[in-house]
């Protein structure tokens, strides 16, 4: 699938989470997303970016704009080398949290995207990939 543009940015702090939101917004606007679609992908990005900082100990985001025929999309890949997710199924459950959040981060972000995948193992970090198409 052709990648039109890509950039990588750090996700290390709360300020980075704000920068992630702004960068994702800019790419979604450039890809021609509607306001609702922009809001969904930015909200999903915010959830996962916060997880990367709070649970993953910081990591990176690779932000890509995709084109498939007439369709355009935004794909986000968050990677950290933190402790990983021990029980992925449990982590994907609404309301489950190992920290002090609401437990909506992963499951909520999944609902806001068209494509969503998590790769993780104990002590091997976590990679969350999400994509939304226009």
């Amino acid at each position, binding site marked *: 699938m052709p990648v039109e543009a890509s950039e990588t940015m750090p996700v290390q702090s709360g300020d980075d989470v704000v920068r992630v939101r702004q960068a994702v917004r800019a790419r979604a606007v450039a890809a021609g997303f509607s306001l609702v679609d922009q*809001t969904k992908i930015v909200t999903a990005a915010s959830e996962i970016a916060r997880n990367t900082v709070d649970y993953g100990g910081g990591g990176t985001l690779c932000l890509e704009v995709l084109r498939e025929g007439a369709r355009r999309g935004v794909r986000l890949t968050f990677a950290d080398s933190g402790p990983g997710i021990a029980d992925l199924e449990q982590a994907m459950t609404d309301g489950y949290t190992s920290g002090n959040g609401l437990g909506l981060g992963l*499951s909520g972000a999944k*609902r806001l995207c068209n494509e969503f995948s998590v790769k993780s193992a104990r002590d091997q970090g976590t990679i969350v990939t999400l994509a939304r198409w226009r």
Partner: protein
Amino acid sequence: MDEIPILKIRDCLLVSIQVDMHDRLALALQDDLTNRIVESRARGVMIDISALEIVDSFIGRMLNNIAGMSRVLDAVTVVVGMRPAVAITLVELGLTLTGVRTALNVDKGLAMIRRIIDAEEGGGAGRSE
């Protein structure tokens, strides 16, 4: 560090969030508001989020917390001005903001606060001075 101003109008506190909030700022607002409710003996808190482009679970939790704390301190919280795209996204995210009263705009929010306070005072359940 940035700070979100809290305005007092009669017995209500008004907060208008105009910046893209990082998490620390959201937590600071929560603390500031709680202190101001006690200091100012406010009966109502109105939070205007019309400038917010997203509400994620963290900000949603902050709104829930503020509503809960103000209730314990005998004040009513109303969140006003949520953008339609934000409302659609919130519901899909799974955040229903139960316990947070909402109104479409500042006018309706103030009217709602007034109505609730009057009803409580009329019913004898208000704060005794």
